[in-house]
């Protein structure tokens, strides 16, 4: 995380030795991460999302302050991409895992058909009436298996490495942004092909779904940055 230029600059700071600088940077990063991780975990549960947001923003402020103070902390852009993708992975894992594996729990029966009633009737139509349970939309279970067991665990692992500024984290972040793009291209095609089933009688058809989901669709916008960022800032 500390580059040669940073350490040289730190060594020049009046009255602060290199070791002090490194220690202060580590502490500042840890303090910011504590808020950022807490906020992301809460937001990742979806139900407690509104509580998590201010915690996350507080972490971001601490991160920015540390950067302005000249400490060698993680760049803001890396922080934002890392946590945004982690949040995407956590949210989708939570929602889809309870639909696939715990569709008869109170949380599922309240949360998912409500989502279905508002935006996507794939989560309302014959909910828990088909043999597997949960959402009955054509193809939905296949997406859930792919997401829960392959794409999202890989994505969350990539985020951890990426936020630690590890080389493997950077490489896997690239992989997971591409897989995210593949998933959304397929999922949106499914939504369009079965639009009659998924949007009939919902409160906010089409526009409501897009407003809600566009934030999850966007992480692959980071790909040009990830492919061309100076790889030397990520350490082996």
């Amino acid at each position: 995380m500390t580059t040669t230029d940073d350490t040289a600059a730190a060594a020049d700071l009046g009255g602060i030795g290199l070791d002090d600088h490194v220690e202060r940077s580590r502490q500042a990063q840890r303090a910011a991460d504590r808020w950022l991780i807490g906020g992301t975990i809460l937001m990742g549960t979806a139900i407690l999302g509104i509580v998590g947001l201010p915690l996350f923003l507080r972490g971001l402020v601490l991160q920015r302050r540390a950067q302005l103070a000249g400490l060698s902390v993680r760049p803001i852009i890396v922080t934002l991409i890392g946590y945004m993708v982690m949040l995407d992975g956590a949210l989708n894992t939570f929602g889809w895992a309870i639909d696939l594996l715990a569709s008869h729990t109170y949380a599922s029966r309240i949360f998912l058909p409500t989502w279905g009633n508002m935006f996507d009737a794939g989560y309302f139509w014959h909910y828990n009436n088909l043999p597997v349970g949960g959402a009955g939309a054509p193809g939905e279970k296949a997406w859930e298996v792919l997401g829960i067991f392959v794409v999202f665990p890989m994505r969350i692992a990539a985020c951890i490495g990426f936020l630690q500024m590890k080389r493997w984290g950077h490489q896997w972040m690239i992989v997971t942004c591409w897989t995210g793009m593949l998933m959304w291209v397929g999922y949106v095609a499914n939504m369009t092909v079965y639009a009659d089933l998924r949007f009939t009688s919902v409160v906010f058809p089409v526009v409501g779904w897009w407003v809600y989901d566009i934030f999850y669709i966007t992480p692959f916008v980071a790909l040009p940055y990830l492919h061309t960022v100076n790889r030397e800032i990520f350490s082996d």
Partner: protein
Amino acid sequence: MNQQDRVKRRALIAVQVVIYGYLLTMFLLQLRLYAQRDW
């Protein structure tokens, strides 16, 4: 950023434009269906 990275970034942005174009097309298609159907 060197020349190779600049070309790479341009190509990746072009890919993004294509993908966002596809997503926009799907959105407009759904809107058209919405206008026609009694949802």
